[in-house]
């Protein structure tokens, strides 16, 4: 128990240190969670107030009214400039009252048509009904608000639960201990809960991605498809401008082109430019579109013959539609995480779920062998072809993906920096701030180049036998190189075993690795031996077999390194499985 004893002492020491620092730490954590809690509560209160007001208004008396004014007002100061302006008159308790409130919610819209629809439902001079507040008859509404807002209460509730749960857990959660106090007792329900966490996390990710895919990808593409049969109609441009929308992430812009058109002798007005809508960064592109339509001699729009109030200036699918692909990343990542969680849970179902699956395939030259993974109880297999852990193509694809993502994100502020220099107004702080990020981006591009060159390296095929290696057994490894193996100056093959411990530190997850066994099987500079060869080895009698649980692992592997002058070296790891001895 020597090493284990030291390990426990170390753990207990850490735990004591944590307790000493706990009060200050707890206050810090409480402050952190308090922000979540306070923000969540603030929005919760605002939302609940709106919902209560909505519910209360449904008991207000229904009264006849007359629409006095009804129009689409243009409020340029708002990012959603089209406002349904209405005024109506009603009699309540023998007194005449006027109100300008349509409903409790905001009546401002990005698109003209939505405001126009309300005008059409409330024409001037028409009779209607309104709902009057009996406690304050001057207050009335024409329509009740929907209860959709009630669903949004879930969002601040999550913040309140995280904040409140975090504060409660910080001060009141105590882990049950066994009476001997050496280690926590096995908590019920703890087993493999991370699998469920992964599935739920992935589900939220995938659901969010799917939710955003509809308005950004599915609906625009579907509308574009439907609009192929819409009628091309001349239109008259009334006004053009670029709207600014301020948010926490900075200012975004959208095109606002208001146009009139006549369809079957009826006049209509719209401001729908395309089917994607929304706003994005980049002012110049939007201004260019606006200028283009401002100078256009014979503009046309496309009108839905089934609903002539619906029209669009650009019905085709454009590069802008590509933004709809972005949420698909969330869908793919979410599904991958869910699959990972399901695989993690299913792994535990077997008796030996803690035994890593061998990354190997059975030697095709040996007929009659099972195509299924070996059971360590089932006796030996002669030879197994090893599959590299991260082949060069996989490394290249991963680097390209990371590089594209990183440089894609970095390119946004970089384009802003370049724009600043072009216009003679350089943003020096942003320029200096971005330098480290640009260096990492350049490093990733260099890494892609390096890994691309590595694709042309000689490839090694390794086989190992017997297939059921266990502590105390002897084995043999064979290798053959394809490609120009003479380029390799020296070849080294090692048998390595290491511990791998994964743990959380704050919000980060780290994995520490430590090698406890290393033996060089081959080290040669002779070309013939580099090209092909065999070597024998033995697994120590008293050592640990392969083991893999969620956070802890004993990994056995073959490490192959080939040194090539002035070129990326050959470097591969091949995981092998060392089985426990068969029970006799």
């Amino acid at each position, binding site marked *: 128990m*020597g090493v*284990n004893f030291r390990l426990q002492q170390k753990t207990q020491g850490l735990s004591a240190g944590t307790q000493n620092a706990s009060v200050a730490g707890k206050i810090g954590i409480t402050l952190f969670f308090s922000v979540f809690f306070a923000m969540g509560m603030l929005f919760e209160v605002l939302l609940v107030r709106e919902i209560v007001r909505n519910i209360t208004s449904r008991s207000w008396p229904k009264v006849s009214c007359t629409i006095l004014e009804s129009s689409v007002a243009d409020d340029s100061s708002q990012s959603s400039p089209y406002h349904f302006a209405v005024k109506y008159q009603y009699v309540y308790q023998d007194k005449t009252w006027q109100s300008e409130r349509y409903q409790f919610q905001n009546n401002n819209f990005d698109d003209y048509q939505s405001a126009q629809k309300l005008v059409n439902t409330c024409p001037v001079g028409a009779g209607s009904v309104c709902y009057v507040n009996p406690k304050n008859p001057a207050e009335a509404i024409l329509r009740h608000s929907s209860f959709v807002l009630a669903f949004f209460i879930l969002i601040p509730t999550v913040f309140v639960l995280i904040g409140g749960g975090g504060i409660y857990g910080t001060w009141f959660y105590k882990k049950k201990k066994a009476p001997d106090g050496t280690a926590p007792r096995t908590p019920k329900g703890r087993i493999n809960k991370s699998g469920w966490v992964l599935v739920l996390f992935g589900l939220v990710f995938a659901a969010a991605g799917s939710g955003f895919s509809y308005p950004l990808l599915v609906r625009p593409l579907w509308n574009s498809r439907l609009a192929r049969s819409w009628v091309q109609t001349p239109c008259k441009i009334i006004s053009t401008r670029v709207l600014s929308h301020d948010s926490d992430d900075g200012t975004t812009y959208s095109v606002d082109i208001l146009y009139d058109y006549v369809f079957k002798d009826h006049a209509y007005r719209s401001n729908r430019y395309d089917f994607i809508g929304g706003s994005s960064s980049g002012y110049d592109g939007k201004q260019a579109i606006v200028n283009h339509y401002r100078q256009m001699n014979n503009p046309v729009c496309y009108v839905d013959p089934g609903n002539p109030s619906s029209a669009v200036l650009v019905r085709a699918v454009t590069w802008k539609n590509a933004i709809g692909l972005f949420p698909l990343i969330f869908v793919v990542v979410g599904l991958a995480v869910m699959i990972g969680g399901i695989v993690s849970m299913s792994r535990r179902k077997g008796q030996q779920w*803690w035994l890593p699956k061998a990354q190997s395939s059975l030697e095709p030259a040996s007929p009659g062998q099972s195509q299924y993974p070996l059971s360590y109880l089932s006796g030996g297999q002669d030879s197994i072809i090893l599959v590299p852990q991260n082949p060069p193509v996989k490394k290249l694809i991963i680097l390209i993906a990371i590089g594209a993502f990183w440089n894609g994100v970095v390119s946004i502020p970089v384009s802003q920096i370049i724009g600043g220099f072009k216009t003679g107004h350089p943003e020096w702080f942003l320029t200096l701030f971005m330098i480290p990020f640009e260096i990492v981006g350049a490093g990733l591009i260099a890494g892609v180049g390096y890994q691309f060159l590595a694709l042309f390296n000689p490839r090694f095929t390794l086989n190992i036998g017997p297939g059921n290696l266990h502590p105390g057994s002897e084995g043999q490894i064979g290798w053959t190189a394809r490609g120009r193996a003479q380029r390799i100056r020296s070849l080294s093959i090692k048998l390595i075993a290491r511990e791998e*411990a994964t743990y959380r530190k704050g919000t980060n997850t780290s994995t*520490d690795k430590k090698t406890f066994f290393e033996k060089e099987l081959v080290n040669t500079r002779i070309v013939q031996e580099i090209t092909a060869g065999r070597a024998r080895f033995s697994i120590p009698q008293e050592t640990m077999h392969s083991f893999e649980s969620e956070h802890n692992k004993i990994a056995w592997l073959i490490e192959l390194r080939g040194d090539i002058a002035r070129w990326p070296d050959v470097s591969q790891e091949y995981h092998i499985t060392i089985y426990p001895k068969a029970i006799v």
Partner: protein
Amino acid sequence: MNPLTIDIEDMNTSFQPGRAVRGQVQWRLAEEPEKACLRLLWYTAGKGTEDVGIVQTVEFDDPAAADTRRFDFTLPAGPYSFSGQLISLIWTLELEAGRECLRQDITVSPAGREIALYPEAIA
């Protein structure tokens, strides 16, 4: 004084994989526990987040406030008890009766002693 006890046959705490672990458990509580059970499990300790593998659980029917029950487990082929610089794997018998809990660590390996990943550190 702990009201729970685990007595392994022959007072043995070192076993080879595949061998039987037999014995008896006792508890002396103030009142009848809702549930009493004995688990054979392993868990990891050290730098990595703790992982647990429950191999077998025996639930004792109709437990009395003071009771004695026998148990008989068969150990699987692995994993072995081991100790390294980052990870240790510990086998244990865990008795739970009502709100009380007791653990009795055992060693599981072919040689009957914990595998030391760094034997030179012990030497």
